[in-house]
């Protein structure tokens, strides 16, 4: 489905990302290493959201909750002295998946505006839960005592090692999504986006497919959360705040919804914009807000829409 132009952009993009640590080292600006790593982690989050939003047509406004759940799992494990990454990370993925089953089952009883509001409300509930967890820092959050420990395999307390691990994770997630959406499962999901009644008429239990996609997306976001906790060495309820969910939607839409490369490019552009604009003025959202409105009104299909003819039809 991806056009050649998209593939080229993506390749160039990963080539660039691969070189970031070298450049950062060379120019001794570790800040860019940090920025690029954060960007790739959020790209995984946006990629997972795109699975349900772009391919499933389900607009989840609470996707940051799963990132938060993943991050909290790692943080809480570390707080209790369990730093083994082989346990922490699968646990983070499983727990986010478990939450996604429950939340998905509730919110998928509805569609449209209801679905948006319910996913938003459930995510906000997790935010308030995080705020009220005094044992784990409450409002202020919790510093990670130690990064995930992968014994002799890899040592991610080294920033560059962590960077390449995240890089690898992003590539793997991208390949996974590629396989998934081109599989039969992905086709059914996209069919249900275009015309749910018709898919049901053909005999597909669409709800089951959508719920599965919702859970997969939740697990992938939970994985991104586990990475993010290691990246910032810190967890706080803010990870789950509803504006974080909004940011993820923006990334997907900026890059171009329903394409694989879109969310990845979107995450890059979003963080760069934030960086550049907040460098210009402290009140950068005064520019960013109207910019968003303009993108919605005039640049349908996101940035990749300029390079390929796939339009974004909203829902």
């Amino acid at each position, binding site marked *: 489905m991806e056009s050649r132009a998209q593939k080229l952009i993506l390749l160039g993009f990963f080539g660039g990302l691969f070189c970031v640590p070298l450049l950062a080292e060379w120019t001794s600006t570790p800040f860019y290493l940090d920025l690029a790593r954060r960007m790739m982690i959020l790209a995984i989050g946006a990629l997972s959201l795109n699975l349900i*939003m772009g391919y499933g047509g389900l*607009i989840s*406004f609470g996707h940051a909750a799963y990132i938060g759940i993943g991050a909290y799992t790692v943080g809480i494990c570390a707080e209790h002295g369990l730093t083994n990454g082989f346990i922490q990370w699968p646990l983070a993925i499983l727990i986010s998946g478990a939450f996604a089953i429950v939340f998905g089952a*509730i919110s998928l*009883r*509805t569609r*449209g*505006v*209801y679905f*948006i*509001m*319910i996913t*938003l*409300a*459930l995510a*906000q*509930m997790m935010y*308030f*839960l995080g*705020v*009220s*967890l*005094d*044992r784990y820092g409450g409002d202020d959050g919790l510093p990670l005592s130690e990064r995930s420990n992968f014994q002799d395999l890899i040592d991610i307390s080294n920033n560059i090692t962590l960077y390449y691990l995240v890089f690898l994770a992003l590539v793997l997630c991208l390949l996974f999504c590629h396989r998934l959406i081109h599989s039969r499962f992905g086709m059914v999901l996209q069919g249900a986006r275009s015309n749910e009644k018709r898919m049901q008429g053909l005999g597909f239990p669409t709800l089951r497919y959508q719920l599965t996609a919702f859970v997969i997306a939740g697990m992938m976001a939970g994985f991104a959360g586990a990475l993010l906790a290691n990246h910032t060495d810190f967890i706080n309820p803010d990870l789950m705040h*509803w*504006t974080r969910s*909004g940011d993820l*939607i*923006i990334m997907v*839409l900026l890059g171009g*919804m329903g394409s694989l490369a879109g969310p990845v490019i979107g995450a890059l552009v979003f963080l760069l914009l934030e960086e550049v604009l907040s460098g210009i003025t402290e*009140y*950068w*959202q*005064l520019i*960013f*807000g*109207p*910019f*968003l*409105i303009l*993108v*919605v*009104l005039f640049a*349908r299909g996101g940035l990749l829409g300029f390079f390929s003819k796939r339009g974004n*039809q*909203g*829902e």
Partner: protein
Amino acid sequence: MVDGALVFEQFFNGIQLGLLLFLLAAGLTLVFGIMDMMNLAHGSLYMLGAYVAAQVTLWSGSFLLGVSVALPAILILGICLEAGLLRPLYARGHLDQVLATFGMILFFNEFVRLVWGPEGIEVPLPSFLKGNVVLFDIPLPNYRLVVIGVGLLVALLLYLLVTKTRTGMLIRAGASNREMIQVLGVDINRVFTLVFGIGAALAALAGALAGPILAVTIGMGENILIQVLVVIVIGGIGSIRGAFVGAMLIGIIDILGRSFLDTFFKIFLPVNAAETAGPAVASMLIYIIMALVLFFKPQGLFPAKTG
């Protein structure tokens, strides 16, 4: 032990919060219902209403003047927003609507931070509303009584508007089937501009009234917006009656949960566990209620849509 007077007092506070939520939910549920429009910026109108009212109150010393400036100001702003920015979005998908109104929130929040600074404003209680009324030996603050009175009055007026007038008939018809009444020759856009304007003014009223009891701060719009969304989902999109019932339910449950849940948990949990679980569950309570309602009635308690 829980004493009856305290329960009554908190119940009273719950009603007051419920009516505040209703002021916001009434306008928003119609926007969702009639135009199938996802508008997140409603909370911003509430915030701007609160700031304008607070500022005018501080300048003039008169709370009433503050309220009466904020209402028309936000009404006009609402109508301009609707005509200028939201109207092109009706034909779009929900996602575009979410994103554009999210952009508005960012803009308004930053705008308020630029103009009034990050600190927030303290609004003093208007002097003529200080003091309490004592009922069964329980002191009830005058100001909260006034908020309840205003809320009930607005609810009554809205009820009359929606059920007894021709405009109200159009609004109800629009909420249940928009295409149909367009085909019948009604200019739904004009009805909708009116609805949006009323909704904006009610949001400003809620903001102005909330000023002296809650803090006037930058995030105030979003915090209440999410509670309002819960109210609307429970009540059923497009239904004023649903908004009223949902708002009272959420207001009372939220306040009672925050006040008494830990006491309740102590009945069957160790004290320590109850003191941890109490506040945690209390902050999640309204969302759990929402999930329960949706489980049994996915369209809310009073569904307005017919087709």
